[in-house]
């Protein structure tokens, strides 16, 4: 075992950090979450920053050089994520692109598709969204009913997707639809790449409990898409979707942002009181600070362990579910603790002059309740771990569906 960064990895960090700090200094004020109305501005900064990263050779660290990536390692990628997140230097508005679309296009796409989409993803010019869930198919992806009917060289798509994040500003979409209603449920699906400006798409925002409209409903009304926009073959939709979710669960490492979160809680604990004394001196608070500090560090060690394995040639498997389950449940508990720590102040939202940290933790607390639902609920992740990692049998109902 060697947990030290290699000289090369250390050199990467030493090279990247000054570059990053230079970019931040140049930008001056970085738009943050609290400027909820300034979403456009935040997205614009994402595009600008991504372009800078791309030009400097820091985009798509692990992706092939021929498509504009760096051809680097997962550890370098981890370092980059950590340094960006520690500084809250930019929000990742293209999580779907980097976490899902990019991976499957590289894995299943034609050369034309790779050429067309990967560089545009890396240089910040195209943001992606995904259309998987439907109102009656959440965890049960095989049950989805949006239809694509072949018509000459095109497919005509009708139906509705839901929980499509970023749809309102995305350029491209990965979409799973039913192309054959006459075969067993999971066999009749196909996977498309859709230009979000295609006629027949209607995006309607869904306000969530934070008050933001991060998610959307997306309606398809006779939307026409050429056959060349299909990823893989007709009927491959299930296989590619599952692979996509595997990629997603291995997506951007979030250690840096959780580190930032728990460091912030340590600071907060020094500045708020508990029974008339600084909270940091309260043994109950200390137990919880200690616990979350540990959990965040373990997230790093878990990530390093799984990346270290991937470096040795293993491919992303169901183990990604462990990481997703881990951080989503951890974050939920940690943000709940933030509320406890703030005491009555926890009720004050961003915009209140009395709000601590301008309501950052309130937003994070409310948003965290979605973590254990989106991208596969915790219950689904536990099924995957139980069945695909531990080899436990499927339950009778789901076993029957499969037949």
């Amino acid at each position: 075992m060697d947990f030290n960064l290699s000289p090369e990895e250390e050199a990467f960090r030493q090279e990247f950090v000054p570059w990053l700090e230079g970019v931040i200094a140049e930008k001056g004020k970085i738009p943050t979450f609290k400027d909820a109305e300034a979403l456009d501005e935040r997205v614009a900064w994402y595009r600008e920053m991504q372009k800078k990263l791309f030009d400097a050779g820091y985009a798509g660290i692990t992706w092939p050089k021929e498509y504009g990536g760096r051809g680097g390692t997962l550890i370098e990628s981890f370092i980059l994520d950590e340094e960006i997140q520690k500084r809250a230097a930019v929000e990742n508005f293209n999580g779907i692109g980097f976490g899902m679309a990019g991976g499957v296009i590289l894995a299943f796409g034609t050369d034309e598709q790779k050429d067309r989409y990967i560089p545009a993803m890396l240089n910040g010019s195209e943001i992606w969204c995904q259309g998987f869930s439907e109102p009656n198919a959440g965890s049960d992806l095989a049950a989805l009913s949006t239809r694509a009917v072949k018509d000459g060289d095109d497919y005509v798509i009708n139906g509705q997707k839901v929980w499509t994040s970023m749809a309102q500003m995305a350029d491209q979409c990965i979409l799973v639809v039913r192309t054959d209603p006459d075969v067993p449920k999971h066999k009749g699906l196909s996977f498309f790449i859709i230009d979000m400006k295609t006629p027949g798409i209607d995006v309607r925002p869904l306000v969530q409990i934070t008050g933001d409209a991060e998610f959307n409903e997306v309606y398809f009304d006779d939307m026409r898409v050429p056959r060349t926009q299909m990823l893989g073959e007709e009927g491959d939709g299930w296989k590619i979707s599952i692979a996509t979710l595997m990629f997603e669960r291995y997506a951007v490492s979030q250690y840096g942002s959780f580190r930032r979160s728990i460091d912030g809680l340590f600071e907060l604990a020094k500045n708020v009181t508990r029974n008339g004394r600084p909270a940091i001196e309260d043994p109950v608070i200390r137990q919880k600070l200690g616990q979350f500090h540990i959990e965040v560090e373990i997230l790093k060690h878990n990530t390093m362990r799984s990346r270290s394995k991937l470096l040795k040639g293993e491919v992303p498997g169901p183990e990604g579910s462990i990481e997703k389950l881990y951080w989503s449940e951890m974050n939920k508990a940690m943000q709940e603790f933030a509320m406890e720590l703030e005491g009555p102040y926890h009720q004050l939202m961003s915009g209140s002059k009395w709000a601590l940290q301008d309501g950052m933790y309130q937003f994070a607390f409310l948003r965290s309740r979605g973590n254990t639902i989106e991208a596969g609920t915790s219950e689904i992740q536990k099924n995957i771990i139980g069945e695909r990692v531990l080899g436990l049998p499927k339950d009778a109902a789901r076993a029957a569906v499969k037949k």
Partner: protein
Amino acid sequence: MVDTAFTEEQDMLKRSARNFVENECPPEYVREMWENDEGITQEVWNKMAELGWMGLLVPEEYDGIGMSFQDLAVVFEEMGRVPMPGPFFSSVVLGGETIRLAGTEEQKKAVLPGIAMGETRATLALMECDPLLSPAGIESVKAEPAADGYAINGIKLFVPDAHTADYIICAARTDEGADPAKGISLFLVDSKTSGLSIELLKTMDGGRKQCEVNFENVAVPESALMGQKGEAWPIISKVADIANAALCMEMVGGMEKSLELTVDYAKTRIAFDQPIGSYQAIKHMCADMMLITESAKSVAYYAAWAVSEDTPDAPEAVSMAKAYCSDTYRKATGDCIQIMGGIGFTWEHDAHLYFKRARCNEHLFGDAAFHKDRLVTMKTSA
């Protein structure tokens, strides 16, 4: 005989409250009130007044009905099912009960009839910038002798519905001595007094409005003093117990409703060809929710009874109820969102109303950790 059931009168009151909240305060109304600075329409307020709820605890000599806290408690339980927005809790419990317990005869005569009729609203300004539910927490807001009375200075925070109250009862320090429990006084302050500025806070639970109340040389007459100068802490403590008992009833009502929403959804939502409630992960979460809901009811009912009867163990009963209801309401409403999945995470769904109310109620008058510690103090000093 020990009888943990409600009396027939209470059952009637409960049914009538259920009807009222279901008909007059449907979710759309509640959502509207979140966006409405007052938190209630005059129409709903007037209807509640007509039902007599605001006078339930006000003695008959002040034009109230003079019933017991237990009776009001069943109304709070039903309000929790909505969950009810507006200043009912602040005016009836914080305002009304503080005046009933601490007010001079003159003050009672002046204010209680209006509260009972719904014509007057009052609230209690307790917490300060360094919020602490103990005598040491009344520290930065001071009332000092001035011409014909007192001058009050300082900032109160998290004051429920101060912006719509006619009277703000202010807990202020009038004496600094070695024992912080001495030297705290209550003042009945007309909210239009000059020097008083009130600002609505932007809070997570939009149904329960809270304010910053800033006293800048607020001059009040001698007659604004409630009861004995410097001796207010025991009364504040008692009002906090009553308030917590009411909040707990509201919480168990909310838990009951959250459980119903969750179970209904689990019976009808299909995944992998089966209702999701047939899967143990969901079923067992529902079972746990049922268990904690019933347990929360048991302890909230007991606390309501103890407060109502003013039993010696009432403070203990209240701390037990507040700690347990806080922990479990938080959990139940969180699990409700989890089981609902994406839909439960939307603003349009009701789940978050309860989830946020759980947070708000916990932190009014001491959170779960505070009350567990207080309980151990009471139990070991007994």
